[in-house]
């Protein structure tokens, strides 16, 4: 029951203890938070179905995850997320019980126990020269009862024991100039053949022109990386041809298949026979065909599946056979779709599907839900009231320890399954929203904040590979239209920005999507290149936000392209400034708009710009490694801060402040690549309108990577201190000194103050800064700060730690005014005595006992209720929760006992009657006396 009954604020403030931690009881897990586990786009899949019991499939993915999935339901049995630089080359199963994974270009071999995922052994395979990494586990090669794993990597052939991972022998092959492509181990023999090329000569032997085999030489042919026995699969435009290598180097075409999307590896099946699976698209259906070798003519199986067109085309297919109850052979296929989702097909139907595109989120934004339109019927209210009361009686029983075990279960179910939180309408507290996420595959998902379910998904066709756009990638998502005046009849929409290719000067693509329905309203592209996107603080009459897109030629393009937009823009023309950062050259430039572009085709939405200022960092001593600004939509409630002795300090709150961190060019590499004497970290606060450096601070003997967050008038950053061998966090607060004279109440009353004078970047403000540093135990992946609707609630830093947890750290711990012995007045103000390191309180982990594997980002969104902020963190996993940094002072907590309140009221009423009756009687007696 998330009813926010605003109660007497002071009472609750008095009742809530001054505890600084965000804390959670164990039975509150899952009430406001949800956690989803993903694995990413599957690269390899190995089935394990021979023995009865739990059937599973072991997969490795592009997010460097090794996972064992339940073949019946697609759930994760176990998974391991390897480091970002530890890409998996190949996986296989050895001895029927170990999962073997070769990673880091074939230099690390690991084995995990298949049933529970515990690590069994790990081997390091050194080598001289990088080469292709190959893994082969012969089923019948035994050395002293030990199965041998053969690995070719880094130019060496290794034989590794599968029991303990010991390297049995090693042979250098690269020195002889062999480029090994495949390892072959014939059945029942003791000889391994490593097939490869010596230089380039051998490669030419089997050269037969593709056009000789297939009469369409206009398209380029691509060899598909499928492992087939004695065959090669070539893909020419949309046709796949299978070419068999016959004797004496002759090639012959076995089969031609039109509109095929993917081909599986050959599956050894029966004696010396191979089967392969083919997937073709036809309308909204996909067709799966299993063909059997060696003639490949007959179709062993032909099935069609209805497929959601939002999943795109099939990228990969893996097959596995099983024996049906009638002893015939059946096949199941695991397919990987364009949106990175994983599906299991069996007996003509989709058994399960996993939305693994959500493991690679690029950007997140939020959208409001539709407003509730019609009122609720009386019958429903009555029913709800009854249910509600019943629930609360149960809860009361729980508090009074009277509940039976069944009741406890019922209570927990009621709490978790509250239909209120997953409704598809807007709520008064603003807890229910849509999270719009853009995945690497170019798919948009709308997730409901209540329970994390996917409301709609859309595979953006603008981010679909086409001739005009070879390599489309999504970049960002922005709120395009947020209707307030016409909230009932207009839907909000978002802007998706992408690029054709990875370089900054690649043509851009734009797409506008309705957030209620998930329909693409408009799309543009490929257009000019997009280097920078500036959402402007203006909206046109239809409440579309104006956006300024910078191209590589430093021209500004205005969107939306409407006459109204240009009218608004012309009015604000002189007030638009922005900056660009050239990290490689160490230059930050400020720009203004000049005039319309001089192009062949007149374009009134295009503007030339001119440079206003530039800051050039000396390239021999400083290199930019991090820049951060305030969030555009951040709200600051109070400009002044009352400190002890009734003094007032005015925060220097400017939207145009930029924090820049530079390090010595030598120290750009990993931590420890330089000695403390050669390393320094310099931080700057720069006004981006004038280019004035407001503050500069040097940390000697420190090094990046720097993670920073900017909010209100402070910036917090995390770096490594080489001298102390510890991570540090520093805070800089910036105050406006020119307003500091406005202390006198008399002057304020008489109007002799400059508080109402506009803040302008043209004037030179006198600022003072305060700074302090603390040790922090962990290295950090990302830092964010909580944001609330009106900015009254105190702030918490959200730190994504190396253990993929999110730690909430009160900003009060990072206050430059902390001292070892605070005075009584300072203590009353809430200043914590200074300690050398920041405390890590386990109860203040937002993610409690969960991990957001592969954590990459944390997003905070204010709810309408001032005390509460919504936190969404993403990586390979997703985690969402609600936070109340200063406790929920404006609403009752979830475990507030309404039943107890009712009982109290009833008891009071009864007591009033009893006393009334008693007093009446007494009075009567008095009178009779």
């Amino acid at each position, binding site marked *: 029951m998330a009813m926010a009954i605003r109660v007497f604020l002071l009472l609750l403030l008095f009742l809530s203890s001054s505890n600084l931690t965000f804390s959670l009881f164990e039975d509150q897990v899952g009430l406001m938070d949800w956690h989803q586990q993903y694995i990413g786009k599957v690269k390899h899949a190995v089935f394990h179905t021979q023995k009865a019991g739990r059937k599973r499939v072991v997969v490795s993915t592009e997010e460097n995850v090794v996972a064992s999935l339940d073949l019946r339901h697609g759930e994760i049995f176990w998974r391991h997320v390897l480091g970002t630089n530890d890409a998996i080359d190949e996986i296989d199963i050895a001895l029927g019980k170990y999962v073997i994974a070769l990673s880091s270009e074939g230099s690390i071999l690991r084995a995990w126990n298949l049933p529970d995922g515990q690590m069994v052994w790990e*081997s390091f395979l*050194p080598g001289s020269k990088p080469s292709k990494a190959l893994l082969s586990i012969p089923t019948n090669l035994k050395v002293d009862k030990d199965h041998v794993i053969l690995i070719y990597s880094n130019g060496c052939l290794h034989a590794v024991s599968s029991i*303990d991972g010991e390297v049995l022998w090693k042979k250098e092959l690269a020195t002889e100039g062999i480029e090994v492509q495949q390892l072959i181990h014939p059945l029942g023999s003791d000889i391994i053949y490593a097939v490869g090329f010596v230089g380039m000569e051998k490669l030419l032997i089997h050269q037969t022109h593709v056009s000789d085999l297939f009469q369409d030489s206009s398209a380029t042919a691509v060899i598909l990386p499928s492992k087939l026995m004695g065959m090669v699969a070539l893909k020419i435009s949309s046709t796949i041809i299978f070419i068999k290598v016959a004797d004496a180097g002759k090639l012959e075409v076995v089969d031609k298949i039109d509109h095929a999307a993917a081909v599986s590896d050959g599956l050894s099946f029966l004696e010396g026979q191979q089967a392969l699976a083919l997937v073709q698209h036809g309308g909204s259906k996909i067709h799966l065909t299993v063909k059997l070798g060696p003639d490949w003519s007959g179709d062993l199986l032909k099935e069609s599946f209805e497929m959601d067109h939002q999943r795109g085309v099939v990228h990969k297919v893996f097959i596995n056979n099983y024996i049906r109850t009638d002893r015939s052979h059946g096949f199941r296929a695991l397919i990987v779709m364009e949106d990175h989702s994983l599906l299991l097909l069996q007996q003509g139907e989709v058994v399960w599907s996993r939305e693994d595109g959500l493991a690679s989120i690029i950007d997140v934004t939020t959208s409001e839900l539709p407003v509730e339109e019609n009122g609720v019927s009386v019958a429903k209210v009555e029913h709800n009231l009854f249910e509600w009361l019943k629930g609360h009686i149960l809860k009361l029983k729980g508090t009074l320890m009277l509940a039976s075990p069944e009741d406890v279960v019922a209570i927990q179910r009621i709490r978790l399954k509250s239909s209120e939180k997953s409704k598809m309408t807007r709520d008064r507290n603003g807890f229910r929203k849509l999270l719009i996420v853009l995945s690497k595959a170019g798919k948009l998902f709308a997730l409901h904040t209540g329970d994390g379910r996917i409301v709609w998904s859309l595979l953006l066709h603008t981010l679909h590979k086409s001739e005009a756009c070879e390599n489309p990638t999504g970049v960002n998502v922005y709120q395009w239209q947020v209707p307030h005046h016409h909230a009932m009849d207009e839907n909000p929409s978002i802007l998706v920005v992408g690029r054709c290719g990875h370089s900054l000067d690649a043509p851009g693509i734009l797409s506008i999507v309705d957030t209620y329905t998930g329909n693409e309203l408009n799309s543009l592209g490929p257009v000019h290149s997009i280097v920078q996107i500036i959402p402007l603080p203006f909206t046109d009459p239809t409440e579309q936000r104006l956006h300024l897109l910078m191209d590589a030629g430093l021209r500004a393009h205005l969107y939306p392209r409407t006459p109204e937009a240009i009218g608004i823009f012309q009015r604000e023309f002189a007030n638009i400034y922005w900056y660009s950062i050239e990290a490689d050259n160490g230059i930050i430039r400020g720009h203004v708009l000049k005039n319309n572009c001089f192009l062949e085709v007149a374009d009134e939405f295009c503007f030339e710009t001119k440079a206003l200022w530039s800051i050039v960092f000396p390239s021999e001593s400083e290199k930019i490694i991090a820049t951060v600004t305030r969030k555009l939509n951040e709200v600051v409630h109070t400009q002044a801060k009352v400190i002890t002795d009734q003094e007032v300090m005015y925060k220097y709150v400017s939207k145009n402040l930029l924090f820049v961190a530079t390090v010595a060019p030598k120290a750009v590499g990993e931590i420890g690549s330089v000695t403390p004497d050669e390393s320094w970290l310099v931080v700057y606060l720069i006004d981006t309108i004038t280019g004035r450096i407001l503050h500069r601070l040097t940390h000697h003997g420190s090094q990046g990577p720097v993670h920073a967050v900017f909010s209100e008038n402070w910036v917090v950053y995390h770096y490594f201190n080489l001298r102390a061998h510890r991570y540090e966090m520093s805070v800089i607060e910036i105050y406006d000194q020119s307003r500091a004279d406005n202390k006198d109440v008399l002057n304020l009353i008489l109007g002799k103050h400059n508080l109402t004078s506009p803040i302008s970047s043209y004037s030179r403000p006198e600022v003072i800064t305060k700074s302090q540093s603390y040790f922090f135990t*962990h290295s950090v992946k990302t830092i964010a700060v909580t944001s609330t609707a009106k900015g009254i609630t105190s702030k918490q830093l959200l730190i994504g730690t190396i253990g993929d947890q999110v730690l909430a750290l009160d900003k009060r711990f990072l206050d430059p005014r902390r001292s070892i012995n605070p005075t009584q007045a300072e203590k009353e103000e809430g200043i914590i005595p200074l300690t050398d390191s920041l405390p890590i309180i386990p*109860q203040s982990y937002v993610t409690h*006992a969960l991990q957001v594997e592969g954590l990459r980002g944390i997003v905070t969104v204010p709810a309408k209720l001032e005390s509460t902020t919504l936190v969404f963190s993403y990586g390979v996993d997703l985690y969402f929760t609600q936070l109340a940094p200063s406790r929920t002072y404006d609403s009752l907590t979830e475990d507030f006992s309404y039943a107890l309140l009712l009982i109290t009221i009833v008891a009071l009423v009864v007591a009033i009657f009893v006393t009334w009756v008693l007093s009446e009687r007494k009075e009567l007696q008095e009178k009779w006396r």
Partner: protein
Amino acid sequence: MAVIQRSKPIFLTLLFLLPFCFLHSALAISPGNGDGYTINGRVKISSFGLKGFDGYFSFHNVPAGTHLIEVAAIGYFFSPVRVDVSARNPGKVQATLTENRRSLNELVLEPLREEQYYEIREPFSVMSLVKSPMGLMVGFMLIVMFLMPKLVENMACWKPVRLKIICLSK
């Protein structure tokens, strides 16, 4: 390479709780030239009540210098460990916990403390009920009901006045 061939194969049987240790690159005093050293160690959780578990780890190809090892394990707090790999006498490893500057003789990493992520729900007590707003309300009510009449009664001076009034009315 010599180092690696001499070293015994390393078992890494860390429980799923401790899948990885993160090695944070080198604080190289003298950068190693290509072939580095191997750091072998052990993570041991000799638990507090429950059956403990442990496992081994190794980092290969580590250049000589100073390194920092961070252990990430849900439920336990580990101090980062500063490891000095000496170039002069290979295999010699000096390790220091950075949190409390305690030096380790062997590279056996143990958690400093267990981490409890949840608040412990206090068992139901009468005091908590009394302290709650409702309890205060009821308490106040009781005071008004039982204490106030007593106070009134004790103020004896009222009685004659009241009697007088009664007399007058008669």
